[in-house]
């Protein structure tokens, strides 16, 4: 066999190609390990969809957007309280239905334009415009006429409860009192956007406009957008035009799009990240045992629970649901599987200042067996196989496996697991195509209302088929309660109804578990895992 030509050209060609490609990467920002500019390197989960506050729906986006924009009010240094944002002060009418915000006269956009109440009005109008199709428009529906405007029943925005008597005054007229309004205002759906910039790139109500790309971006937050490397990172730098109560101390933040928790943990260990989103389950113990551990376990306002499909026998029988709920050893799950100090949930609404549960579950196997027998299934005989639906993820799988085992050995109930990929799982949940479905809910705002609101009959997030007119009536009175103790008493009763009827099976209250470098200063975190970025600092 004779070959006349050398094979050598192939590697040479490949090298040449590599050399051609290399300049592309050389220009990418190098990760700076040496102290210099103070850049916080923040592991931020998945790639953000967009940075338009009226389009996005996720938590990763919230982190970045809250650095790039500022609403009427913002987080204080402890992140638990409220500090003035664009509004320097505000007052409420005696009937709690009219809120007046006085805006800071020196508020500026990052391009130097002054920020006025009209900007807020136009922003609210934009998010509520039907053709924009904003999924979070409903967050503004407390205001008179807002819902009708989104549904196209009102087309004149002047007829809604949003108004601006002058450039620096903004008035909101509400449909009903909203005790947690200030907390709600910290959500990005209430943030102002710079309409002249948006309109440069197309109609204000068109999705997918390019105004959120770094070169075009205009915001009003403590930081401005600098670079966006898709699936890598988004960097923001201190805004020169920001005139908030405190000047940001960081020079910038790099939000890393890291979608693998194992990779994220390795990056933290390699010194590439200051903060992570999470810690792989298996690594928690190793971190916990370290001296001066970077492991942070913080309260998180959320409940991990299983939904029952109350429209399907045998789960339409409250006794069966109760039996299943009582047969679970939550302590064992929390201690042996989750290992991060999560609190077993014996009722649905997570702990909150002023709120105490009206009734709690008392897990007991004997009682569970008795209930199951009373429902006509002694020792599980005659009961059909029950399927637990969970989305594809290791942590959910492990918990479901443990519960499967507890129901099998404790009650003799035959259980199968069904693992569906995220979108399919959501679809099954919305269409009630399940027996028992793993679920979780993180509060939209820190108030029990965000949890108890879920179980209203026919509610969009109910997904259990549960309908209880008495519950609905009681819930409707909550926001009109004369004072806070009275309101909390109503929530106490609502929570007790859920614990009695059990359309859902509470399992545990979440904890945020993540890694934090000791270099990060002034770190704080509220129960929704939010903070004002302007307060943070880095030690050299």
């Amino acid at each position: 066999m004779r070959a006349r030509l050398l094979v050598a050209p192939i590697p040479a060609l490949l090298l040449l190609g590599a050399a051609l490609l290399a300049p592309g990467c050389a220009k990418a920002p190098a990760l700076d390990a040496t102290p210099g500019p103070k850049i916080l390197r923040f592991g931020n989960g998945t790639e953000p969809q967009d940075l338009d506050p009226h389009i996005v729906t996720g938590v990763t986006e919230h982190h970045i957007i809250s650095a790039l924009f500022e609403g009427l009010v913002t987080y204080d240094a402890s992140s638990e309280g409220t500090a003035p944002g664009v509004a320097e002060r505000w007052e409420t009418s005696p009937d709690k239905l009219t809120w007046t915000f006085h805006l800071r006269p020196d508020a500026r956009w990052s391009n130097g334009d002054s920020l006025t109440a009209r900007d807020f009005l136009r922003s609210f109008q934009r998010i509520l415009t039907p053709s924009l199709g904003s999924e979070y428009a409903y967050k503004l529906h407390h205001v008179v006429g807002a819902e009708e405007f989104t549904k196209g029943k009102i087309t004149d925005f002047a007829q809604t409860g949003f108004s601006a008597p002058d450039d620096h005054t903004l008035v909101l007229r509400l449909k009903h009192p909203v005790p947690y309004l200030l907390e709600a205002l910290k959500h990005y759906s209430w943030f102002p956007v710079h309409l002249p910039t948006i309109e440069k790139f197309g109609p204000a109500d068109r999705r997918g406009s390019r105004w959120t790309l770094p070169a075009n971006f205009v915001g009003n937050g403590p930081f401005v957008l600098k670079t966006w490397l898709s699936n890598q990172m988004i960097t923001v730098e201190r805004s020169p035009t920001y005139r908030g109560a405190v000047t940001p101390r960081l020079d910038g933040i790099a939000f890393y799009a890291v979608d693998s928790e194992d990779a994220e943990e390795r990056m933290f260990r390699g010194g590439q990240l200051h903060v992570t989103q999470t810690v792989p389950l298996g690594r928690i113990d190793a971190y916990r045992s370290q001296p001066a551990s970077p492991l942070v376990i913080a309260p998180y306002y959320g409940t991990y629970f299983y939904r029952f499909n109350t429209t399907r026998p045998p789960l339409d029988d409250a006794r069966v649901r109760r039996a299943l709920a009582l047969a679970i050893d939550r302590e064992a799950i929390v201690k042996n599987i989750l290992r991060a100090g999560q609190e077993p949930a014996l009722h649905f609404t997570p702990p909150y200042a002023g709120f105490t549960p009206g009734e709690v579950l008392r897990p007991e196997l004997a009682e569970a067996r008795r209930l199951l027998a009373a429902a006509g299934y002694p020792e599980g005989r005659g009961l059909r196989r029950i399927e637990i639906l969970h989305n594809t993820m290791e942590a959910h799988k492990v918990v479901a496996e443990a519960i499967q085992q507890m129901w099998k050995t404790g009650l003799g109930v035959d259980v199968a697991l069904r693992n569906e990929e995220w979108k399919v799982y959501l679809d099954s949940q919305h269409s009630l195509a399940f027996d028992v479905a793993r679920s979780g809910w993180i509060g939209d705002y820190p108030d029990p209302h965000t949890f108890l609101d879920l179980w209203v009959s026919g509610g969009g997030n109910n997904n259990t088929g549960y309908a209880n007119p008495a519950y609905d009536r009681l819930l409707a009175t909550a926001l009109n309660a004369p004072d806070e103790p009275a309101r909390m008493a109503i929530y106490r009763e609502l929570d007790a109804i859920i614990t009695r009827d059990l359309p859902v099976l509470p399992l545990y209250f979440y904890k945020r578990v993540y890694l934090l470098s000791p270099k990060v200063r002034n770190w704080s975190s509220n129960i929704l895992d939010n903070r004002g970025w302007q307060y943070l600092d880095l030690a050299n």
Partner: protein
Amino acid sequence: MIAAPATAPSVPPAAAERPHSPGRDAWLRLRRNRLAVVSGIFLLALAFTCIVVPPFLGQGYADQNLSLGATSPSAAHWFGTDELGRDQFARVLYGGRISLMVGFVASLVALSIGVTYGAVAGYVGGKLDALLMRVVDILYALPFTIFVILIMVFLKEPMNDLDAWLRRFDFLKNLQGIGKIVGLFAAIGAVEWLTMARIVRGQVLTVKKMEYIEAARTLGYSHARIIFRHIIPNVLGPVIVFTTLTIPAVMMLESFLSFLGLGVDAPLSSWGTLIKDGADKMEDFPWLLIFPGGLFATTLLALNLLGDGLRDALDVRAAKD
């Protein structure tokens, strides 16, 4: 079109002069290849252990002991336990059942499609052959892994339903997750048959031209007799070799699907899912990776060595490389 790429065989003329009872010669040659013999024995022992032993362990793959948690290997738990306190030895053996089954059955699926397709193309020849092989060439150019993922995403729901339906029958009750496994067979088998088709066609073409086949034809023997008596025995060698080499490839593919969460469902586990879980915990609970990973690698190694040995013994060139 250019002559076949690497994975397709260019059967050497030497194959045509093979003695009439090649089986015995091959067996003798194979026996002289110590690595292949050891591999074969290992695989037989492994398959036997995975199939026969699990019911006698006294521990199922799903039996938990939450208070025990993850423990390193001990006399009670040879391979240690995972975080749910499940005996890793049982899980590895049950996982081996699934992985071996996926490997074998998916390869058989690929084999049957490939052999039929290739044999038809080669035997009929002419325009049909040209057309069929053109299709194979074209399919070769497709991004396989991408397609397997798409097929798995697509099949996941139907297979979940099939699973639920199958489990209504009492005798299948314990085969939870069987639907997903069927899906795996289909998805992997559907993309792995191409090379097999090429090999078989090439072999059939060579054999068809041989004098004794021509003679058989002029003597008026039926197609069936020609195919079964003469062609199949001659095609068998490469097919066996290639199947042996396909199994590890399939097992590897299954482990990738597990990495993406498209593998078998909990609490069932294959070696792929065990390795994926173990890889995440390798620093804290190394035994969760070492045992399934070690067995997986050894099995793949043995299959490859056996395949190589068979290739040498059966004198099949370029079945895989």
